[in-house]
C-alpha cells in the first residue's frame, strides 16, 4: 500500500496541474532526461525548510498552488530598459514573442529559440551542464521548460551589441519555465543581459535555468536584473562550465521580487580561469530574496572573486549562502568571498552563510560576512553639509552598493539599476 500524506497530495496536485499546462516540454527531444527528471519529481519530496539548501526559504507557497499557463498580449516596450542598444529577445510567461524581438544573423553566430535549435539538432550537451540530480526545482524546470534562448558564438567571434533577454510575467496564476543555453567557443566574447519583469498585478511562478559553456580563452558576461512587481515567485539557476584561460562575470541585481531564489553554480574545469560574481539585493515590505552561489574549483591556478551586498528593510528577508569548493588538485587557487549587509528595521531578517570547503593546501581563500547598520555619524556629517536626511541616506545607500552597480558596463542598464535603487531607498 502506498502511503499518501497531505504533503504528497499537494505535490501531486501541483505536478498534475503543470502536466496539463505544459504538454510539450523542451526535453521531449531528450527522452531520457525528461524521464529522469519526472521520476525525481515523483519519488523525491519537494524541498522544505528542513532541507539544508532551503533552510531559510519556504517553497510551500509555490507547491500549494495549482498553476495554469496562459500568454496574454503584453507590450514589451513598456517594460524594457530605456535607450538600450541591444538585440532584444522577448518572452511572455516563458513563450517567445518573435514579433517583438530582433536578433542578429551572421556567420559563426547562432541566436534562436532553444526549441528550434534542439529540433534541428544544433545543441550539444543540452541538460548536461546542470548536474544536480537531487535538486528538485531544477528537475522541475527540466520537466516543464517550454522554450528559451540558444546562443552559439563561433571561434574568436564577438557581437558588437549585447543580447538582451527580456522576460515578462503577466496575468494571474501563470507558471512559466525557460531554459537557456549559451555556448561561447574558443576566444569568443559574449555579453548577455537577462532582465525579468512583471507588472504590479501579476501573479506567477517563473523558473529559469541557464546552461553556459565557456571554452578556452573565451569570455561570458551576464548582467542579471530582476525587477518584478506584483506577486511573482522566481527561481533562477545558472550553471556555467569554464574551460582554461576563460573569464566569466555575472552581476545579479535584484531590484524587486516577491520571492526570489538565485542559484549560481560555476564549475571551473580549466586552469588559469577568472570568475567574478557580484550581487546586490534590497528587499522591502515582505519580500524574500535568496542568493545561493557555488564556485567549484577543480583545477589549479584559478581565481574567483565574489561580493554580495544587501540592504534589508521593513519585514523583508535576505538570504546569502555562498560556497567555495576547492578540490584536492586545485592548488594555487585564489578565492575571495564577501557578504555585507545592512539591516534597517527590527522586523527585517538576514541569514548569511559564507562557506569554504577546501581540500588543497597551497591556496589563498578567505571570506567575510558583516551585518550592521548605517553609520549615524556619517549621516550626521552629510546633514551638517546641508543634505536632507533623505538625500543623506540615499547617498549612503549608493555608496554601499556602488561597487556592484558600477561594475555594470552598459550605461543604459546601469542607469536603469541606479534609478531602481533610488526608488527603493525612498521606500
Amino acid at each position: 500500500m502506498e502511503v499518501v500524506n497531505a504533503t504528497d497530495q499537494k505535490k501531486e496536485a501541483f505536478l498534475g496541474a503543470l502536466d496539463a499546462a505544459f504538454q510539450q516540454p523542451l526535453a521531449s527531444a531528450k527522452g531520457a532526461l525528461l524521464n529522469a527528471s519526472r521520476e525525481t519529481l515523483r519519488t523525491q519530496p519537494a524541498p522544505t525548510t528542513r532541507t539544508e539548501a532551503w533552510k531559510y526559504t519556504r517553497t510551500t507557497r509555490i507547491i500549494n498552488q495549482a498553476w495554469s499557463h496562459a500568454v496574454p498580449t503584453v507590450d514589451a516596450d513598456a517594460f524594457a530598459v530605456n535607450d538600450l542598444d541591444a538585440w532584444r529577445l522577448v518572452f511572455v510567461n516563458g513563450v517567445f514573442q518573435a514579433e517583438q524581438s530582433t536578433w542578429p544573423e551572421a556567420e559563426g553566430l547562432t541566436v534562436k529559440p532553444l526549441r528550434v535549435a534542439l529540433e534541428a539538432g544544433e545543441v550539444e550537451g543540452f541538460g548536461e551542464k546542470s548536474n544536480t540530480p537531487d535538486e528538485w526545482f531544477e528537475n522541475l524546470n527540466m520537466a516543464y521548460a517550454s522554450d528559451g534562448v540558444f546562443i552559439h558564438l563561433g571561434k574568436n567571434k564577438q557581437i558588437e551589441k549585447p543580447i538582451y533577454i527580456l522576460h515578462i510575467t503577466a496575468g494571474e496564476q501563470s507558471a512559466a519555465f525557460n531554459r537557456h543555453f549559451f555556448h561561447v567557443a574558443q576566444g569568443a566574447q559574449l555579453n548577455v543581459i537577462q532582465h525579468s519583469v512583471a507588472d504590479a498585478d501579476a501573479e506567477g511562478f517563473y523558473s529559469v535555468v541557464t546552461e553556459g559553456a565557456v571554452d578556452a580563452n573565451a569570455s561570458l558576461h551576464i548582467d542579471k536584473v530582476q525587477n518584478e512587481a506584483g506577486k511573482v515567485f522566481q527561481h533562477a539557476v545558472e550553471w556555467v562550465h569554464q574551460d582554461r584561460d576563460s573569464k566569466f562575470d555575472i552581476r545579479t541585481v535584484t531590484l524587486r521580487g516577491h520571492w526570489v531564489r538565485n542559484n549560481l553554480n560555476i564549475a571551473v574545469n580549466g586552469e588559469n580561469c577568472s570568475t567574478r560574481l557580484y550581487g546586490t539585493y534590497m528587499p522591502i515590505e515582505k519580500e524574500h530574496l535568496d542568493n545561493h552561489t557555488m564556485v567549484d574549483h577543480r583545477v589549479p591556478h584559478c581565481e574567483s572573486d565574489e561580493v554580495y551586498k544587501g540592504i534589508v528593510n521593513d519585514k523583508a528577508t535576505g538570504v546569502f549562502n555562498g560556497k567555495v569548493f576547492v578540490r584536492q588538485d586545485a592548488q594555487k587557487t585564489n578565492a575571495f568571498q564577501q557578504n555585507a549587509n545592512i539591516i534597517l528595521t527590527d522586523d527585517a531578517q538576514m541569514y548569511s552563510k559564507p562557506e569554504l570547503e577546501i581540500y588543497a593546501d597551497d591556496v589563498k581563500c578567505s571570506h567575510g560576512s558583516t551585518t550592521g547598520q548605517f553609520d549615524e555619524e556619517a549621516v550626521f556629517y552629510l546633514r551638517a553639509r546641508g543634505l536632507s536626511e533623505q538625500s543623506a541616506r540615499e547617498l549612503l545607500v549608493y555608496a554601499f552598493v556602488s561597487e556592484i552597480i558600477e561594475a555594470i558596463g552598459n550605461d543604459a542598464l546601469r542607469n536603469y539599476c541606479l534609478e531602481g535603487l533610488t526608488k527603493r531607498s525612498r521606500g
Partner: protein
Amino acid sequence: MAYEGDEILEEVTRKEYEFGWITDIESDKAPPGLSEEIIRFISAKKNEPLWMLEWRLDAYRQWTEMKEPNWAHVDYQKPDYQSISYYSAPKQKKQLDSLDEVDPELRRTMDRLGISTEEQKRLSGVAVDFVMDSVSVATSFKEKLGELGIIFCSMSEAIQSHPELVKKYLGSVVPKNDNFFAALNSAVFTDGSFCYIPKGVRCPMELSTYFRINEAGTGQFERTLVVADKGSYCSYLEGCTAPQRDENQLHAAVVELIALDDAEIKYSTVQNWYPGDENGKGGVFNFVTKRGLCEKNAKISWTQVETGSAITWKYPSCILKGDNSVGEFYSVAVTNNRQQADTGTKMIHIGKNTHSTIISKGISAGKSQNSYRGLVQINKTAQNARNFSQCDSLLMTDRCGAHTFPYIEIKNSTAKVEHEATTSKIGEDQIFYCLQRGLDEEKAISLIVNGYAKEVLNKLPMEFAVEAQKLLAISLEGSVG
C-alpha cells in the same frame, strides 16, 4: 609500542599515541545493549532516587524515536548502540577522604598521565576530581572548598546529597531531547562532575576533572553540571586522555553551565582522546553537547584545545539570555592522519547589549578533515548585540581538508556582526627563516603552529597552556608535508 627500542627515527616520524595503555583493574560491567532494564540496572547500581530513574527512562523513550544526525561533515561507521556496555565501574566502592587510599594501580595511571597529584596539590592548587571509567574514585581538596560553601563532587554523589540542586538545574540548559546524543546521555549517564559555587564566592583554585575511557567496549557517558550562583566565579578544567584501542569507542558527554546574574564561568578543555592509528583504525567517537546559559551580566568563556578523537562532533554554545551578558569561544582544533573534526560554537543572543567573540583556529594535517561549524543568532529582543568571529584554517598537506560553515542569522537592526575566515598553509618563507636560524623543520612547524594558535592558548590557565603546547607538537609530529 613506541618508546621502547632503539628506533628513534621511527619514533619521531610516526609517534604513536603516548598515553595508550590499559589499566588492569577488574570492573563491574553491565551486559552490552540498551533497554529499559539496563537503565533500571544502572540506576539501581547507583542507588538513585525514583525521580532520577524516571528522568532517565523518559530520556530513553524519547531517544528511541530520534534519528542519529548526519548533517556534520564527517564520515564514519555508525556505532551499534546495542553492542555497547553502558555501565562499567572500578570495583572499588568505599568513599575515600584522601588520595593515599586509592588503589596503587590507579595511582600509577595518574602518574603516567603526568598528573603527579601531590605535586599538583602543592604547585597549582588544583582539586582533581579524577574520573576513571564513569565512577569517581578520588576527590581532593574537597574540605578546603567546603569551607567556602563550594560543592564539587561526582554527579552520583550530588544526586544523593544535593537532590534539590540537581533537580532544579539538570537538563535545564541541555534538555533531555535536545539531540540524539544528549538524549542517549540523559538515559544512561553513569557519572560526571557537579559543581556549585554559592553567591558572591570566587573559587580560589582551578577545578578540574580528568577523564579516561578505560574498559574495552564501554561507552563513556559523562554528565557535567556547573552552577555559578549570583556574583560568583569559577574556572573549570577538563582534560582527556584515553588508552589505545582498535575498536571504536563512543563518548557522548553532556556539559551544562549555568551562570546566574553577574557570575562568570571559564571552562577549559584539553581533549586528547585516542585518535586512531595513521590508517584511521580505532579511535574515539566524541559526540559532545556542551552548552552554557548566561543570566544578567554573566559571562561564559569556553576554551578548547582539540587534538584527539577519530571523530569530533562538538559545539560548545552560549545562550546569552540576560542583558549585558558575554559569551566567548576560543578553540584550537588539530586533526592529523584520518581524524575528522566538525566543531564550532553557537552564540544565541537574546538579551540586550550581549556580546560574543569567536576565535577558532583549525589545523589540518595528514589526510584529516577539519570543519568549523558555527551559528550566530541575533534575536529580535537582542538590542545592540555584538559579535566578532574569526575562523582561520591552516593546511599542512595537500591531502587534508579545511572547511568553514558559519551560519549567521540576524533579526535585529542594531546588531553588529562580523565574521571572517581565512585558509592558508604555512609560508615557505616562514619555514625557510626558521631553518636558517638553525631550527629543524619539525621545530619550525611547531613554532609557527604555536604562534598561530597563541591567541587561544593564551586563554588557557597556565598549567593547561603548557600541556596544550606539548600536545600540539606531538599531534603534528611527522606531518610535515
